[in-house]
């Protein structure tokens, strides 16, 4: 057993992808942890905002929802959806959105709406919320996924949020001005997208797994030739995450072991 959980390494890994002065569009759960990690370690001047309108809150307590009153305190501005969602596409800013999804395809397109069809629905998820907007308008998105075969699919049941569409230059050709997925952070590793084909490949795998296991849990053919082993979380970063970011383990869940 590793001395850290998958959730912990996911939060720390995703946080490390953020640059200083990035404007972070965070949901709740893991994305909130990742954003906080980013601000405390890698990008102190990064700004966190929520689609509900809370811009750069102090986050003394961890919000459990984007509409949590905890996102309304110490903010630069308290506004609303129109304002907040407009920031996503602002060309002046490197806006990075953290998104989760139920399904992802090899070009990073996402489904958070349903399985089946409107005529024959099999499962319902909450829907886009701001995910389609972030995926359409932001400078980049970072996706959190549980790495399961049924979630990494060849064809989405419902295409909620645009990634690299069908790869290559298709995203720009479709009319998007910028954006596209930068990375997928899963409970097994980090996946990125080829510069040319925009197809997903394995970039890093966590110390407790290996590329072949990850490929087997991926529903489409995955390039693992470029995979590097990820270092385990640094002691001080893990400590900061546990003691300062989520001491109640509201999102981190049970301690390892």
């Amino acid at each position, binding site marked *: 057993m590793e001395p850290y959980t998958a959730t912990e390494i996911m939060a720390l890994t995703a946080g490390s992808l953020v640059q200083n002065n990035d404007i972070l569009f965070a949901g709740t759960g893991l994305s909130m942890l990742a954003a906080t990690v980013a601000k405390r370690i890698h990008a102190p001047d990064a700004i966190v905002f929520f*689609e509900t309108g809370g811009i750069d809150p102090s986050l003394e307590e961890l919000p459990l929802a984007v509409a949590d*009153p905890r996102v309304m305190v110490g903010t630069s501005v308290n*506004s*609303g*959806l129109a304002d907040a969602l407009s920031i*996503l596409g602002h060309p002046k800013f490197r806006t990075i959105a953290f998104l989760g999804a139920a399904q992802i395809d090899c070009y990073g397109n996402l489904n958070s709406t349903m399985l089946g069809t409107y005529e024959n629905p099999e499962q319902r998820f909450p829907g886009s919320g701001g995910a*389609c907007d972030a995926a359409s308008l932001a400078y980049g998105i970072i996706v959190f996924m549980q790495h399961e075969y049924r979630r990494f699919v060849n064809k*989405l049941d419902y*295409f909620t949020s645009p990634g690299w569409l069908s790869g290559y230059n298709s995203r720009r050709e*479709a009319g998007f001005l910028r954006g596209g997925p930068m990375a997928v952070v899963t409970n097994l590793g980090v996946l990125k997208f080829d510069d040319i084909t925009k197809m997903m490949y394995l970039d890093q795998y966590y110390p407790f797994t290996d590329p072949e296991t990850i490929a087997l849990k991926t529903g489409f053919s995955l390039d693992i030739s470029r995979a590097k082993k990820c270092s385990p979380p640094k002691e001080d970063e893990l400590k900061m995450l546990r003691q300062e970011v989520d001491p109640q383990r509201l999102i981190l869940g049970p301690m390892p072991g």
Partner: protein
Amino acid sequence: MTDKIMTARKAVDTFIKDGDQIALGGFTVNRNPMHIIREIIRQKKKKLYLVVHSHGQGMELLIGAGCVERIELAYGGVARFAPTGYLFKKAFKDKTIEVEDYSNYQMTLRFMAGAMGLPFIATKSGLESDIVRKFGFSPQIRGKGKIPEHKLKVINDPINEDGGKVVVLPPLNPDVALIHAQYAGEKGTIRINGLSFADIEQAKAAKTVIVSCEEIVPEDYIRQDPDRNSLAHFIVDAIVPAPFGAHPTACHMYYDYDPNHLNYFKKIAQNQDSFNRYLDEWVYPFETMEDYLTKVGFKDLLKIKANSALGYAPGLDRR
């Protein structure tokens, strides 16, 4: 100007009829107009057509109670308490409601277009997605009543030759907007504290606006600081005094969401029998906020009471 202050019973009876298109204010676990929503259930309104961006607890209750026929939405969930609302999920799978999916920005822009009298509004958001390619409402009902002829259209930018494709959206002008606010002046000026979500756009877009509020204050008082105010008095048709009127969702500066209640609801929502018992226990008997709050009890209300500096209940056990 006639007196707008009235009970939930009178507001719902006067202004909401079966089949109305209704915008719900608030967002997942915050400022849901719960007092009005419970009254809608008591008055057994039917075939409501909800238009929301991200809605949670209030929508769950209305769906579960069988008041809803149709929804346009971006998100149906109660945050961590039910990442997808159970009653929404069930109604969707059982096809007891018709659902049309949009994104939050799209829904917000549609409310804004309705509020501003814009004939339509355009965005790049959603190009190539199933939001622009798949349609939840049946073609037979499109163009009837409030249902727009087109969910949306993808067209070439008509003014910028290099603009490429854009998504054009129809405005929303709901029959009724339901808003829960912190303050109302006696004549109807409304002040929302904290985030306003899309409540202001929803209210301005609607034909009729019902606002429940924590406090009614003298109109002179609320006008001493008009920079803070959210809605002009003449926009508002009914003011319903409702302290804790958003419970079990939060109301910034007044109270937090109620994790006990929401966790309990999560359990009972998974089964129609237990949900019906919830209605019997929590909705049908209490026409006034006083009676409802007596049922909630001081113990839980004190737990969620907001700290005046923070606006929420610090240290609240939210597991």
